[in-house]
């Protein structure tokens, strides 16, 4: 499904942040901001909720811990008990380095995969770019134009973009994950 977007391009991130703040104050819904680097204070300006990615990190890490502990316990105590220097079969201190490593491994791989899936990235995916210059030195503020958006609102968006210092304003048709 194709969507229509209104894009304003800035070359100064301070003007862009001030613009975003002004637009949100006048009750326009900014769909997205695309920038070549992480802009400080942008999350607050956009009113974004805190990312939930680290919660998945905790869940993956905890599952990794549980899997590693149960596997080691099973293999060392019931499946194939071996005598290592007379130590008990269930030697918890010896498990700890492996538990730590496996926890970190599960959390990092799980979080990476979740992030890629959530952003719609997978091998073979070809993404449309909003504007190639946003990977270089331009900052794009994006509005979504749906069927409900009135001409009046579009006019207001354009005006706000213009007044806050956007150098170029254009409409584009892209898929939802552009």
């Amino acid at each position: 499904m194709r969507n229509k977007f209104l894009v304003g391009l800035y070359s100064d991130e301070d003007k862009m942040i001030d613009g975003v703040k002004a637009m949100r104050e006048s009750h326009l819904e900014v769909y997205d901001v695309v920038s070549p680097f992480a802009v400080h204070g942008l999350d607050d300006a956009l009113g974004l909720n805190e990312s939930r990615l680290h919660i998945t990190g905790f869940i993956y890490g905890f599952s990794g811990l549980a899997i590693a502990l149960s596997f080691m316990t099973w293999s060392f105590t019931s499946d194939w008990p071996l005598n290592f220097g007379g130590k008990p079969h269930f030697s918890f201190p010896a498990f700890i380095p492996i538990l730590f490593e496996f926890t970190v491994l599960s959390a990092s791989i799980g979080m990476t995969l979740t992030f890629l899936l959530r952003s719609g990235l997978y091998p073979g995916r070809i993404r449309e770019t909003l504007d190639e210059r946003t990977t270089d030195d331009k900052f794009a503020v994006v509005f979504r134009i749906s069927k409900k958006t009135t001409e009046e609102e579009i006019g207001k968006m354009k005006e706000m973009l213009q007044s806050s210092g956007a150098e170029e304003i254009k409409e584009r048709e892209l898929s939802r994950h552009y």
Partner: protein
Amino acid sequence: MNETFNFTSRLKTISIVLMLIGAAALAGGFVVYSGDEINRVWANLLLDSVFFMGIGMGAAFFIAAVYLAWGGFSVVFKRVPEAISQWMPVSAIILLLVLIAGHGNLYHWTHHDAMEHDPILKGKQPYLNLPFFFVRFAFFVGALVICTILLRKTSLKEDTMAAGDTSMYKRSLVIASVFIPFFAVYILVTAWDWLMSLDPHWYSTMYGWYSFASFWVTSIAVITLFTIYLKKQGYLKEVNVNHLHNLGIMMFAFSIFWTYVTFCQFMLIWYANIPEETIYFQHRYGHYKPLFYGIFVLNFVLPFLLLMSRDAKRSMSRLVLVACIIIVGHFIDFYLMIMPATVGDNNGFGFLEIGLPCLFIGMMLYVVFSSLAKAPLVPKNHPFLQESINNSL
């Protein structure tokens, strides 16, 4: 920006009352315990003076490390670790007095006949002898005390300089870079001298890091408590939730660091299973088992779980809770380093163990608050001041 802390008479009364309680407990200790039991008093004095001196030393290290790392976040509340570091010279004198008066009761290796009939101790005699013991104390502690006082003086002088003058900042960098190498050797040597030589036959190469990790995380917790107290009293208006978040991150990170170092030491000894080495944990495992497991709960599990989320690090009440847990936990950690070697199974938590820390807390509060009151709470010409005010996470 010119606010100065007011050391009210109420605070003075509180610290003096704490000191009196502690002094009474100490005097009571000398009266109640006699003969062999007197060791318990000396062991407690050593525990408290080493632990509280570690807090002052950790605060001095905090300042020096932030200077050398060109860190900016702590500049607005820089006077807090500075004031805590002023407690270090005082506590060094107290520790010196305790060591001079109590070395015979505390350290087995100071007795001549013990040295003569023990081939292992005889082999260590070139290092473990009293003159060299005090020379090491004077050399390392003296150098660090001088650096700490100079760091404080330079910082106060910076306030009087013209705006934009960075000469004092550069001088502080030089002092800090003298401080750090001394500190690196100091933490190893003093941990061997004051704590590890309580068990003179035993040795561990991780011990210096282990005790350093313990007092370092404690001093971060103390810095956090003082900063939050000042903030609650209406001082330090530029300090916001982002600075507290940074302190929370440091408490969280160094609790994990302590666990890492402690477990490293334990696991290598456990794996190799050599009797000369396992004896250390044998002493701490039998009679002291609840404390031995308890410190892992207090110093790792609770800080780890309570400070894990971002919201927790930004909540004052949570930070205060965790800081208190860390301080108590690491006090018990030092207790476990000292008590099994000095009083063995005759330990306990009596009026002495509760009262004596009051003496040190009272003295520390008095010194810290009076140094806070001596200077503006926010440094004026520090080049990273604006960066620190703008700090956000």
